[in-house]
């Protein structure tokens, strides 16, 4: 019996070692989130949803401010402000360092919920998604993430890669490559606007719980450095929908500005930039926006 158990144990260990080696192949093509759970704890963070994930590029902070900042933004489904996101931020944040830089992207969606009761945090969908079920956020390979969240077959980690138009950089920036000819972009924008108008606008409601958590997130991060709030630009048609969703968004945010080190509303310059689908900045515009943010921070 002892022989059987020992041999079985060794067999499992060897098999697991090989599987670990295969898991090491997981990279920025694996999915749009995995890499963010494999890097070390961070002193400086960019937070928000997919707009920030695609729009704010950390490499320019290094270039222009000599700051290593990490983009820990996900999507509107994964990372609206709330308990789940705050807990995950705390796990990712290196509390041993002070003088950090934190950029929080804000918009009406990230303080809203599409639940019937927008304040019932037990039913927030992010609770069961990757931020909710991955308690270890700095392990490579991250078994917990891959076991719980990797969709498809692990075989795809070895093959079938690089077929996606998305690549998640090790600094957390999600690079999206898309055709940008006018007709295609218009089609994507029209589709996105339709979805936002018909599906999102009718369901999303302001959540005071999420708003409180945005406040808590700011207060937590303020202990470790400077916190800046940024409202990223978007296509005018999406902007119209946001205005309908939350006409008093600016008033709401004004209440939070004193808790932070400043608020930069970039929506007056919406027309200056290019968007892949109306909601997300194209990478070249993302670079411009990132540089604008850096300039603004420097003036603060």
């Amino acid at each position: 019996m002892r022989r059987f158990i020992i041999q079985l144990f060794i067999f499992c260990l060897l098999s697991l070692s090989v599987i670990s080696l295969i898991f090491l192949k997981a990279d920025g093509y694996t999915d749009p989130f995995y890499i963010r759970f494999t890097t070390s704890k961070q002193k400086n963070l960019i937070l928000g949803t997919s707009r920030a994930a695609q729009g704010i590029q950390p490499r320019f902070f290094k270039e222009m401010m000599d700051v290593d900042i990490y983009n820990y933004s996900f999507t509107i489904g994964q990372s609206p402000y709330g308990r789940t996101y705050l807990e995950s931020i705390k796990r990712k944040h290196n509390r041993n360092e002070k003088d950090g830089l934190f950029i929080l992207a804000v918009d009406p969606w990230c303080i809203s919920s599409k639940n019937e009761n927008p304040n019932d945090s037990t039913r927030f969908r992010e609770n069961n998604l990757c931020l909710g079920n991955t308690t270890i956020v700095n392990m490579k390979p991250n078994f917990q993430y891959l076991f719980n969240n990797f969709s498809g077959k692990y075989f795809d980690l070895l093959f079938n890669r690089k077929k996606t138009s998305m690549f998640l950089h090790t600094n957390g920036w999600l690079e999206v490559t898309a055709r940008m000819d006018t007709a295609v972009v218009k089609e994507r924008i029209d589709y996105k606007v339709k979805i936002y108008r018909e599906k999102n606008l009718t369901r999303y409601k302001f959540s005071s719980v999420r708003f409180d958590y945005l406040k808590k997130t700011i207060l937590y991060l303020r202990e470790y450095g400077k916190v800046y709030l940024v409202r990223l630009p978007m296509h005018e048609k999406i902007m119209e929908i946001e205005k309908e969703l939350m006409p008093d968004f600016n008033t709401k945010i004004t209440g939070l500005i004193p808790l932070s080190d400043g608020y930069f509303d970039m929506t007056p310059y919406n027309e200056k930039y290019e968007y892949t689908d109306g909601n997300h900045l194209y990478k070249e515009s993302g670079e411009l926006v990132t540089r604008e943010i850096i300039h603004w921070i420097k003036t603060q």
Partner: protein
Amino acid sequence: MLFNSVDFAIFLPIVFILYWFFINKNIKLQNLLIVAASYVFYGWWDWRFLSLIILSTVIDYGVGLKLKGEDRIFRRKVLLWISITFNLGILGFFKYYNFFIENFTTAFSFFGAEIKPNTLNLILPIGISFYTFQTLSYTIDVYKRKIQPTRDVIAFAAFVGFFPQLVAGPIERAANLLPQFHSKRKFDYAKAVDGMRQILWGLFKKIVIADNCAEYVNLIFSNSTDFSGTTLVLGAILFAFQVYGDFSGYSDIAIGTARLFGFNLMKNFDFPYFSRDIAEFWRRWHISLITWFRDYLYIPLGGSRGTTLNKIRNVFIIFIVSGFWHGANWNYVMWGVLNAIYLLPLMLRKSNRNHIEIVAKGKHYPSLKELASILFTFSIATFAMIIFRTETLSHSMQYISDMFKFSPSQIPWQGDMNYSTTLILVFVFIIIEWFGREGEYAIEKMGLNWPKVVRWLFYISITVITFLFSGTEKEFFYFQF
């Protein structure tokens, strides 16, 4: 609980450790643990239906004991019919009630009578077709005085509910399994290692072969009108490997798990796709069910004795009932009929037992004639499986007629998906099965003479490949029966 789930990966070691480390000196406690574990295993799916297993256990246990002390033929028959009525009654109610109601309604409407069908929203209890047949065989064997009834209710409950084979077989006979619950079990290293090896191979069949094939099979069968003839042929072939990998994989895991606990279950699949005729195929496919029907239906009906008409009738009955056992659907019945038609010429020419031994025994390769026979048998078995897989008879007909719009120059549809990996895996699988065909399962003896390092590398490779292909847990195909 699924064999290919994390839940089972936790459950099995717990039961194993309790079984061999804590209560290994006491058979009664071991049996009690098996009963408890089996009920947890089953209840994980839906605890409400445990009551059916318990009721079936109590009734057949009671009937068995009553039969022992009863010599009057009439009373013995009554007792037997109590068991048959109960077991087939629950099976009929859950599985066939709606089917009969709907068909009666259709039949009456045909004659102009309008009937409002009173169908029920029934859930089919998982494994019901398997455990009812197992417990029924006990009562019939006791009635026929082939076995003595047991007085040990725990051992009997363990026999009925034994978790490795509870939900999808092999459908065991009391004569084989029940005595094992009465005898002392000693941990046997070789047997346990063999069990693990068989579990590993079963998981490989299920996760790597069946689940991979299923992706394309589901797509092709669900949209069959959109595809070319060659794609439909490919879909049918992949389905043949899906259903074999799925069901024989389940059986391997079940047999291997039972071996970990010191039990020997009967073989359920014996490399059926290497059969040289359809009679051999049916001796190698779902053996526990086919022998059940042979012993409790075919032979009592007269088997291959009697007039030609009787032989024909018996062959059709056994195949139609076998088809119907799979589910309340005319497709299964037609699948049975088609297989009876395949078998009939062999039966009537008395050449149905020409191939008893495995093909090319002791040789590396088959002769050309053997290869041709194997391919022919596989083709007709696969053809029948189209009827098995499609949802309605009209869909079957559509699929088959579209399949013959066949142009050899047409490459099967690929679209966004690359099925070449699946085809390579199926090819490798066939090679391994071929070279392992003389064993109880393909990798039973494979590598036993290799250096230990190479053997371990082989097993680790299978484990890793199986893991790499695992994704969302998928139910076993035969659970629906």
